[in-house]
């Protein structure tokens, strides 16, 4: 199991009059090389949850393990550095973390902090630049000359340069145009497929959940409401409505057809492709020529 949460609770400013619980009794597991999407409204505890993953926040109750690392309320900061390297964090609007004079130096910053010597780190930076789809001419430029989308790629390259095994993404496509969003999501998909990275994605985009995630966790008021496959989560339409969450477009559409009597024997389709495939199957079983 790549990630295991066991009854994790977290309270901000614990043991003070201002104590506010942000997570209560959260338990779930993500298998090795898994792809988990976390959904839920603003303030549901998603951000607090992902900050547990590399112990930027340590649980106030319970414990979690990420591969060989275990974090408990008493884990000391000295033990955390290997974990921080193991879990790469891409925060919302990660371009705001850029600071170095050149793009290369910025990407090399993380690996150097974890003890890689500067020459190797810079070489690694060049590789990462290519990985996120920027050519070598960018290496010596200032990160602040770039467009917003390019800056974000550089920031992500800076996280990937630490060779994490788990990649945590907090709304990585926010503020990008649709093309940028598509390219960004396929980059993560490629990393997941080709390098076996475990991915934890916080998102509001149900289309992305349907298309990429293998597992979905639904958060509300600091508790984990449900965890399951996208098919399991999105099939329970009535329950989703009570949780005030949207269906992916294709599922909404399929749902409307279902109300008119169309059956979905293979389960509610979640993507346009899935929907078309199921429609085509019904078309041909009825033995009619296509229009």
């Amino acid at each position, binding site marked *: 199991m790549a990630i295991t949460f066991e009854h994790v609770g977290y309270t901000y400013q614990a043991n003070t009059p201002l104590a506010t619980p942000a997570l209560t009794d959260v338990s779930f597991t993500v298998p090795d090389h898994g792809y988990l999407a976390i959904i839920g*409204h*603003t*303030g549901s505890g998603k951000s607090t949850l992902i900050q547990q993953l590399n112990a930027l926040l340590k649980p106030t109750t319970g414990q979690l393990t990420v591969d060989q690392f275990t974090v408990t309320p008493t884990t000391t900061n000295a033990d955390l550095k290997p974990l921080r390297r193991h879990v790469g964090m891409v925060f919302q609007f990660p371009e705001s973390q850029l600071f170095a004079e050149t793009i290369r130096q910025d990407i090399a910053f993380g690996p150097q902090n974890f003890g890689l010597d500067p020459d190797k780190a810079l070489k690694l930076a060049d590789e990462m630049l290519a990985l996120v789809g920027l050519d070598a001419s960018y290496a010596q430029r200032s990160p602040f000359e770039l*467009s*917003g*989308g390019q800056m974000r790629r550089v920031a992500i390259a800076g996280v990937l340069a630490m060779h994490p095994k788990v990649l945590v993404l907090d709304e990585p496509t*926010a*503020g*990008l*145009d*649709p*093309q*940028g969003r*598509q390219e960004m999501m396929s980059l993560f998909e490629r990393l997941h497929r080709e390098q076996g990275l475990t991915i934890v994605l916080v998102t*509001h985009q149900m289309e992305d959940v349907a298309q990429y995630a293998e597992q979905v966790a639904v958060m509300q008021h600091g508790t984990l409401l449900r965890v399951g496959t996208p098919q399991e989560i999105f099939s329970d339409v009535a329950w989703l409505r009570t949780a005030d969450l*949207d269906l992916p*477009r*294709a599922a909404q*559409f399929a749902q*409307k*057809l*279902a*109300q*008119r*009597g*169309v*059956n979905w024997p293979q389960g509610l389709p979640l993507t*346009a*492709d899935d*929907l*078309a*495939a199921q*429609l*085509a199957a*019904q*078309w041909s079983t*009825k033995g*009619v020529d*296509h*229009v």
Partner: protein
Amino acid sequence: MENIIEVHQLSYQYPDASERPALNQISFDVRAGEWLAIVGHNGSGKSTLAKAIDGLLPFTEGEVIVGGVALTADTVWQVRHQIGMIFQNPDNQFVGATVEDDVAFGLENRQVPRDQMIKQVAEALQRVGMADFAQRAPSSLSGGQKQRVALAGIVAVAPKILILDEATSMLDPQGRQAMLALVRELHETQHLTVISITHDIDEAASANRILVVDDGRLVQEDSPAAIFAQGERLIELGLDVPFTAKLATALRQRGITPPSGYQTTAEMEEWLWQSLSNTSATPTKPTHP
């Protein structure tokens, strides 16, 4: 219908950029009461265009006429008073220390007497559903709530034109829908002219007309249906591909040919339902009336 905005041969070059101009010979009109969407991928120049119309950038060539007033250094305030603008980042346009102070900001600038201000602020907040938050500090609001406050600030000064410069792009889906619903309502009830610069397909679909900007040029101008009919190519224009277009492509790959042109979800649903029922030997019975 009369034109409320006329743009002729507008060009602009950023002072620090040696390369191509940000705006290149753009001309178009906006009719009073119209909803116009301006789309284009990031960096295409669409936000620059919006700022130029409001006199926030000193354009180098061309002419902008707003409500019959030609935009010059002398008339810039006359032009700005006719336009309300909401920008992308909810935090960076919240001036007041509290919600009501922020809504009052535009009124203070117009030197509205205090008694009248109090009334207008309260009404505007009521209008956007933020009356209960009047005393709150911005740090205690969500992005969507902050944008609604920004909208209240505009409602309070009642301009003829509203420009949304990617105003919903940093909001979560709920915030975005709430904001769009409010703008639609204002557009209808106040005869407000809306110009929305956007990547959002729903926002673009609300428009009467769409302008496509690419590389600082106006490359296309058409109805949403005609623009959306371009299907998969829309992603190059900075828009998402509408769901029905994605579905149509997926169906064609499987040998099913839906009607050509852009279909709304309702049209697509109807066509699929008809085709399925007609081809079926025993028509399936609706489970819901």
